């Protein structure tokens, strides 16, 4: 059967699929825990009866019982070398059961393994596992394929690619969504539908997990985006355990009653999953046989996906910002990391841009000295589980783009395809195979046209070629091509004409790499902003830019409102409700304060940047260093302590204030020493005891002690008692702070204290840590216990005296 024949059938009638197979086999004696495929081959009557019954009930398509007949699944029964034989025989049995006038779908289902990036198995390995099964099913004589009960989008992509790369038979793809309307690994129905349709699924659906009622909202979502037929195989309601037996709570007739609603939504194929029987299918058939099916929309929508998010572009949609910062050009730090094979800067940039409001992340890792393909694949894998934003694959190499598209678990955007011969011949078919959207760059082998006319010609050529490989206008994004206005004052106008053409004539999306416009001129942000507004007015709906530029994001929000892309101004209001600070901080400024208040406030607010200048000002005004400490810094930090005790401040604020205080104190220190050499810092050793590796608590205590003027000697974590005592003696330290996190390690604190006493040391010990209590501290003979860092400082101050 070819795709045309498949679609012809769907236009004639509601196509009925079969119901559950597993439960039918169990009724006919299949024991729990058996390998179904093997059992069927040993007991062929069971499947023959079952499938004959489904055919008689009215099924137009039955699924070959090859659900678990892939190498990884069969391996658990020691049958991994029989993949070919088992699949061929199972299809032959199905054929024997239903004859040649009922269609047989080769059934591919989860392998039971988890695929990268989410799991540990390589993507290509999974593709090969499915390919092996697909080939055998083709050899067995299936009419089409169904990939069903899928829980992970990446594994589904592997199965779909395996079919597409092996045969032209139609392929239906169905995922399982839970009560939260997501697959087990977090993909929603819209995102799944767009991703799978782009990769070539001929029909999309959902099966298993819930009954027909709960599937309706899911199906509506799929229908809202799908450009292919949609199908459904619900369970017979919800599973219930009764007397150790599993059964489903919805009867055959009730089940079939949902058919009306399915048809109404526009579903073209209906069957049943767990708990359904031939009776259910015959009711379904009865209900739907006189109905003319609705047709489906035959074009894709302009949208990109990641594993868990869809970004839709369109005339009335807000301007989409493509974050430009993952690009090593001109970024030393990023270059260095990429050379070393590290990705932490890439990861940081990804999340920062996401937080700042980018909707898509451009990924460019092209630079000398690295294996671009390998790095690109690494980055794409990393980002697809780190960020929820869809990616824009940006490279001049077709190979790099292909490698990235292959493993990217969503629908990506390609940056870019120009009118150059080699791009059209090589990259365009690759892009089409993976169903990616692409940016059409209006230049070719001959020129970079300076006029809109020249550019439009190239765009038309790219579109014509794209249509030959199956693309439509919604799959393309036109790049207006931004040239610097300082070298050609007409450059901006020509670009705007291209944008207008894309929006009004072609009705495609368009994009600009904004910042080029202002190259070579001062105060570039004004040109960039003005240009963005003009382009938006012409219909621009995407921009490659740095979302950390607040100026730009604010303009975008305003622009969306003014050209009707922000219904009820909602995004605008939300955006500015969140970022009140601009208006607040301007309110604050005019207030004149005297120098003392400034110093006090700087500590209170934790603003260490300015405190030195304020202190110098106070000194210039004649204030004594001691007075600054005693009358300003200390009262301020005490106030902070109070606020912290009342929980009006939390830890980061406490630390910020303490640091401001320390900065001030350090600035004054040389003067204080001059005034009074009597003020000497008390030494304190701190350590996390042997066997314990938790040191953030100890570090915070150390930090606060330092900020309050102690000289802290931090010995680190997992410190043996010998080391602690050695340091106490050598440096003549009066106070030691010990930290331990767990019951298994806190005993060591007692050991240290005992050893110190044995040696006759006079050092005082204070202890703390998550499980440490006052009682425990007393028990081991410590001189004090503190619950947190502020208490620790107070304790140290008492012990000091």
């Amino acid at each position, binding site marked *: 059967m070819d795709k045309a024949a498949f679609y012809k059938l769907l236009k004639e009638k509601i196509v009925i699929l079969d119901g559950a197979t597993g439960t039918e086999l169990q009724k006919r004696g299949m024991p729990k825990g058996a390998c179904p495929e093997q059992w069927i081959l040993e007991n062929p009557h069971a499947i023959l009866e079952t499938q004959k019954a489904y055919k008689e009930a009215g099924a137009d398509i039955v699924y070959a019982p090859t659900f678990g007949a892939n190498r990884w699944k069969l391996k658990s029964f020691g049958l991994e070398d029989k993949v070919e034989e088992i699949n061929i025989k199972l299809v032959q049995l199905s054929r024997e059961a239903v004859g040649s006038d009922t269609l047989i779908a080769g059934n591919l289902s989860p392998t039971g393994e*988890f695929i990268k990036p989410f799991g*540990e198995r390589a993507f290509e390995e999974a593709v090969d596992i499915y390919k092996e099964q697909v080939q055998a099913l083709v050899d067995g004589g299936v009419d089409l394929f169904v990939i069903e009960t899928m829980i992970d989008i990446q594994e589904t992509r592997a199965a779909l690619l395996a079919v597409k790369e092996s045969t032209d038979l139609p392929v239906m793809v169905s995922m399982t969504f839970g009560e939260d309307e997501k697959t087990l690994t977090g993909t929603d129905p819209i995102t799944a539908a767009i991703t799978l349709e782009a990769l070539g699924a001929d029909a999309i659906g959902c099966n298993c997990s819930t009954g027909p009622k709960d599937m309706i909202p899911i199906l509506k979502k799929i229908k809202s985006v799908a450009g292919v037929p949609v199908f459904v195989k619900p369970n017979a309601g919800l599973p219930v355990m009764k007397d150790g037996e599993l059964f489903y709570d919805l009867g055959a007739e009730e089940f079939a009653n949902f058919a009306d609603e399915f048809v109404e939504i526009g579903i073209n194929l209906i069957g049943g999953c767990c708990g359904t029987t031939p009776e259910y299918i015959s009711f379904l058939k009865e209900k739907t046989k006189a109905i003319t099916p609705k047709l489906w929309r035959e074009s894709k929508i302009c949208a990109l996906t990641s594993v868990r998010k869809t970004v839709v572009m369109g005339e009335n949609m807000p301007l989409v910002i493509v974050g430009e910062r993952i690009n090593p050009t001109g970024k030393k730090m990023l270059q260095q990391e990429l050379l070393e094979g590290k990705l932490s800067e890439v990861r940081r940039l990804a999340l920062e841009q996401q937080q700042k409001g980018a909707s898509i992340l451009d990924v460019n890792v092209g630079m000398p000295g690295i294996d671009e393909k390998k790095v690109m694949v690494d980055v794409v894998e990393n980002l697809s589980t780190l960020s929820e934003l869809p990616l824009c694959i940006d490279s001049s190499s077709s190979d790099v783009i292909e490698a990235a598209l292959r493993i990217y678990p969503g629908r990506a955007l390609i940056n870019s395809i120009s009118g150059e011969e080699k791009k059209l011949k090589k990259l365009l078919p690759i892009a089409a195979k993976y169903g990616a959207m692409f940016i059409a760059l209006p230049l070719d082998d001959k020129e970079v046209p300076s006029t809109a006319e020249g550019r439009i010609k190239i765009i038309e050529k790219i579109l014509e070629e794209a249509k030959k490989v199956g693309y439509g206008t919604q799959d393309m994004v036109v790049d207006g091509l931004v040239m610097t206005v300082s070298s050609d004052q007409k450059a901006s106008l020509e670009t705007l004409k291209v944008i207008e053409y894309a929006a009004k004539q072609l009705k495609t999306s368009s994009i600009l790499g904004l910042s080029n416009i202002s190259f070579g001129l001062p105060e570039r942000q004004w040109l960039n902003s003005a240009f963005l507004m003009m382009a938006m007015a012409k219909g621009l709906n995407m921009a490659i830019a740095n979302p950390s530029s607040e100026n730009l994001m604010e303009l975008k929000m305003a622009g969306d409102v003014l050209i009707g892309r922000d219904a009820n101004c909602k995004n605008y209001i939300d955006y500015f409700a969140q970022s009140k*600070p601009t208006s607040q901080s301007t309110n604050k400024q005019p207030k004149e304060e005297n120098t003392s208040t400034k110093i006090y406030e700087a500590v209170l607010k934790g603003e260490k940047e300015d405190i030195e200048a304020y202190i110098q000002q106070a000194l210039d005004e004649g204030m004594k260093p001691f007075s600054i400490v005693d009358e300003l810094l200390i009262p301020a930090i005490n106030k902070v302590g109070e606020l912290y005790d009342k929980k009006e401040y939390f830890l980061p604020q406490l630390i910020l204030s303490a640091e401001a205080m320390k900065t001030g104190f350090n600035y004054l220190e040389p003067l204080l020493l001059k005034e009074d050499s009597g003020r000497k810092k008390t030494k304190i050793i701190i350590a996390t005891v042997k*066997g314990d590796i938790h040191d953030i608590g100890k*570090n915070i205590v150390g930090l606060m002690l330092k900020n309050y003027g102690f000289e802290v000697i931090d010995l680190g974590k997992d410190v043996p008692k010998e080391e602690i005592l050695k340091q106490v003696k050598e440096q003549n330290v009066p106070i030691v702070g010990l930290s331990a996190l767990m019951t298994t390690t806190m005993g060591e604190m007692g050991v240290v204290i005992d050893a110190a006493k044995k040696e006759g040391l006079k050092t005082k010990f204070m202890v703390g840590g998550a499980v440490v209590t006052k009682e425990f501290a007393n028990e081991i003979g410590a001189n004090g216990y503190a619950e947190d860092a502020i208490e620790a400082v107070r304790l140290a101050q008492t012990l000091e005296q």
Partner: protein
Amino acid sequence: MDSTVRYFESIWIEPPMGRILYRLGYKKTKTKLDEHQREQIEKLIWEGVSHCHPKGAFLILPITDRTKDSVTIGKHLVESKSLTELLKNSEAVALMASTIGDEIIHAIEDEIKKENSVKAVIFDSTASQMADKTVAWVMDFINKSLQKEAKALTSMRFSPGYGDLDLKYQKIFFEELKLEKLGISLTETYMMTPEKSVTAICGVENRVRREDE
């Protein structure tokens, strides 16, 4: 569900902002934080998240024996009243583990060295909550997978080191889940490295139907 260990190499976890702040002492009704500070802190949290690599593993094992205050899980005898109570309706358990890797640990150490203490404590809190949420994710994954069999995990989870479940039982997790595969190891004092790692156990019960279903 079968009885092989399942590993998740890379899990997407949305940072639990509220819990991260709460761990740092933030109290919704009391703490006063201006928008500028909040923005700074959120930025640091996201930076912390970029250093986290959430991974997980789980295994379903049968309960093979039980007394008043002990259960035997597979071949391991575990003496704990509270665990025995938790598992009273279960015939099997799920052993789970999560980690977010050591990159964040090094990042925290670096920030401490550079005396960027605010960043260090925010990273630390972010890391703790990400590790915790990762094991919750694993639990959720198992729960959804069990739905088909009309089963569910106990809503409570338990961990060695809590209550009367001794830390020595960490060994069971390491033996059964082969946690070195996720890069986790156990010290002699039963501490896990990387530090931001969690082990947990739940019972597998028959799903009780809710009234409204």
